[in-house]
């Protein structure tokens, strides 16, 4: 029996896990899953970390996949992730004492965007360890492994983030934290 490859498919509703055969084309897999791109939409394979390797470039170099190629040739056993119905690039703006912009691949995960932003703002990795990205306007905090393509609303091409310090939960006082009743003054 032919082996199957477990693939994480993004861009057609909620992310899903699908199984593909090494010898089938990506078009065939996407067709089976009802996830073929429409005119002007693209498909990316894998995850892009271009921004870490080349932080000063204006854009990622990650290019769309040829969906007529087989899963084996596209090395999906190694890459695992497929992003369908994607834009070629997503413009990302990050603000923190100013702003930096870059055109990212839709397959870039938030962890990569965060690392890129810290490099561009010249933030020391240790002192900046508590800095995270929050997505505007709602200030939600995406997971580090979420991809930019998953954060776009329909028709949106630009994502804006603030780089902020992660909230450090604090108790009102040590008595509350210790689960005691605070002493009262007589």
């Amino acid at each position, binding site marked *: 029996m032919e082996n199957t490859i477990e693939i*994480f498919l993004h861009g057609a509703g909620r992310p899903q896990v699908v199984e593909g055969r090494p010898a089938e084309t990506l078009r065939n897999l996407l067709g089976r899953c009802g996830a073929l791109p429409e005119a002007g939409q693209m498909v990316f394979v894998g995850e892009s970390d271009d921004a870490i390797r080349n932080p000063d470039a204006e854009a990622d170099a990650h290019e769309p996949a040829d969906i007529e190629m087989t899963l084996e040739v596209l090395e999906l056993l190694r890459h695992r992730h497929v992003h369908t119905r994607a834009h070629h690039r997503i413009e990302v703006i990050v603000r923190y004492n100013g702003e930096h912009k870059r055109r990212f691949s839709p397959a870039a995960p938030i962890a990569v965007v965060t690392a890129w932003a810290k490099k561009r703002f010249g933030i020391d990795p240790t002192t900046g360890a508590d800095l995270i990205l929050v997505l505007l306007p709602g*200030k939600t905090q995406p*997971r580090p*492994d979420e991809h930019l393509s998953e954060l776009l609303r329909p028709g949106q091409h630009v994502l804006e983030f603030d780089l902020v310090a992660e909230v450090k*939960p604090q108790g009102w006082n040590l008595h509350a934290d*210790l689960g005691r009743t605070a002493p009262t003054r007589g």
Partner: protein
Amino acid sequence: MPISAAQRLLEADLARPEFLAGLSRGDWSLVRPVSEAEWPYVYTWVRATPRPKSPDQYMVRWNLEGYNAQSPTGAFWELSATTFLPADRWPKGTPGSVVANVFKVSEWAHPGEGFYHPYDRLARHRHDQWPEQDPQHVWTNQHTLTDFLSLVHRWLNCEAYIGC
């Protein structure tokens, strides 16, 4: 005894891409399959960035009673001794960092038995101000164990983590 609704919900969440993608990257794994006999306890490994004299992964025991209407509580665990990991072997963070804060093992009601974070059921108790302080981390039934697990993974793999 039939499997509880909570266990069924968890098993569905563990079959979702968010959990499986972390599993395929090696970020986390189940120590052993979720079992009715051990419920509400579930054991996971979470990978950590290598640091001198520190393990490359930590075991977390999760108490998932009432999942997921109730938030989990988790703590580092020593399987061989079937007890919480001793305080001196909990991961540490640079002073003042979020890592140091969430993994603190003193000066709160359940040191070494939970994570000092709004997602943790033990820590959330008696901290009615936390939803206002940190509205992004108010647990709802839309959250899954993976949301909490990915935070623990991030803390163990950021520059502020200095080993144990």
